[in-house]
């Protein structure tokens, strides 16, 4: 009973994570300029990979080898570094004056 509930929860977390990752990549391809494209990978992809890692941590915690917390380390690291790298990339793009939609319209 409890095993099937855990398996269902892990499956939902893995599938939702993969779905969010795919949405982030679709945003990376489809959105019109760089500053809009930055939103997809920094928010949707980070949430998706975080959900997948939490799902895998839940899976390995219920294998009978005790609590498995080192997966959360990757999630924590990813959640700290994603905004930093997005900020650096946005500053680089501002410096290089990449073409945006409003600059093209003018």
């Amino acid at each position, binding site marked *: 009973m409890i095993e*099937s509930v855990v*398996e*269902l929860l*892990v*499956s939902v977390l*893995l*599938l939702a*994570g*993969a*779905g969010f*990752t*795919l949405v*982030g*990549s*679709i945003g*990376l*391809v489809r959105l019109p300029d*760089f500053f809009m*494209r*930055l939103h*997809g*990978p920094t928010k949707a*992809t*980070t949430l*998706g*990979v975080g959900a*997948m*890692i939490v*799902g*895998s941590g839940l*899976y*390995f915690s219920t*294998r009978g080898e005790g609590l*498995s917390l*080192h*997966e959360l*380390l*990757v999630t924590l*690291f*990813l959640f700290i*570094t*994603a905004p*930093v*790298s997005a900020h*650096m*990339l946005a*500053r*680089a*793009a501002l*410096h*290089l004056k*990449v*073409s945006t939609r409003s600059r093209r319209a003018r």
Partner: protein
Amino acid sequence: MLELAVPVALALLGVALLLNLWRLVAGPDLPDRVLALDTLYVNTIGVIVLFDVYLDTSIYFEAALVIAMMGFVGTVALAKYLLRGDIIE
């Protein structure tokens, strides 16, 4: 259920990786290409984690951790290079 969910999630991540590769090849500006590389390494962490669950081992977990750290350093170095024309001044 997990036997079905893991291959489906791997397939979704494969499509996501191909879309990132398209942006890496087609991206009109340099920051677009760096952003595509950044997304590629984050998605690779997801693939490694799913592969761990698929094989029911956790020996590939260290690879995910190392990719997370080295990928962040690489993205920061490339962004710094685009911003200043130099990495360590």
